[in-house]
């Protein structure tokens, strides 16, 4: 598929990059990316993925837009309160870029539906808000052999890591004991989030997705980028051997 005249103009500044060119943009337009979650990280990530012309985007979330989402979930407005996030996101993203086809699942990712939903995509972007689903994505992507980028935020800090199943360490490998059963205990005291850290972390995460699709080698594999916007501390830590 070659870029048409309008696409050549639209994606001019991306295709001007010598590592991407028109061939790279064509690759992005034929790519299939699935984003799990449609909250803060996803709002920002989806906007860029669609703007950049990722041709096929799938979104999975069962939540509706609420008032306290608006300061950090930039895809939604006051008029969207009460609507399903995936429906609003589909409408908005397809308006943002008609080159993009958005598919939606108005359901929570579970062990029963994860394989069926994730299968067939080139890469998964985790934008969920809990460890349980992150570990489910990790397991499912290993089974299906689909790469994934995992992201998380809380208070002023966030992290991003990329996993190529069977070639790199998994997110789960960081933990000797999985922190899912005791997560609820800490949830109430761990809910604050500084909105700019969401934009920062989601931008790094979608950059990983796009670089993977384009065949870039310098990804966050077997390592994790950690950013703290309170202290302006950025670090990359290697996974355990």
């Amino acid at each position, binding site marked *: 598929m070659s870029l048409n005249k309008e696409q050549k103009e639209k994606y001019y500044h991306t295709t001007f990059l010598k590592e991407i060119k028109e061939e790279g943009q064509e690759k992005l337009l034929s790519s299939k990316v699935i984003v799990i979650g449609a909250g803060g990280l996803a709002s920002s990530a989806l906007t860029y993925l669609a703007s950049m012309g990722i041709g096929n985007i799938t979104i999975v979330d069962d939540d509706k837009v609420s008032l306290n989402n608006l300061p950090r979930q930039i895809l939604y407005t006051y008029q969207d309160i009460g609507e399903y996030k995936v429906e609003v996101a589909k409408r908005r993203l397809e308006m943002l870029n008609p080159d993009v086809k958005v598919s939606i699942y108005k359901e929570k990712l579970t062990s029963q539906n994860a394989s069926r939903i994730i299968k067939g995509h080139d890469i998964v972007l985790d934008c969920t808000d809990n*460890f349980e689903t992150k570990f489910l994505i990790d397991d499912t992507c290993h089974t299906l052999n689909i790469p994934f980028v995992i992201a*998380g935020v809380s208070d002023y800090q966030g992290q991003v890591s990329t996993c190529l199943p069977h070639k790199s360490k998994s997110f789960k490998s960081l933990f*000797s*004991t999985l*922190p899912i059963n005791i*997560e609820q205990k800490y949830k109430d005291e*761990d809910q604050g989030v500084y909105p700019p850290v969401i934009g920062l972390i989601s931008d790094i995460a979608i950059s990983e997705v796009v670089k993977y699709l384009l065949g870039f080698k310098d990804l966050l594999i077997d390592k994790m980028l950690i950013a703290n916007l309170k202290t302006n501390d950025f670090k990359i830590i290697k996974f355990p051997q």
Partner: protein
Amino acid sequence: MRLIVDSVSSNEYPAHFSIADLLRKMDVEAVPWLIIAVNGQFYKRDKFEETLLNDGDKVDLIYVRGGG
């Protein structure tokens, strides 16, 4: 012994001091999603007791985030 913990350097640490000792001293050993990096390398929880820190080690306490 001198350790640099979350970018703060201090000489107050005794010799033969493990990662687990450090976490107990800081009262954070029970936080389930806390992982530790020593000189840029992650250590899993099951290595905390046996891993002794050395003079000058740089220790980062990483609270892995689940929020989205």
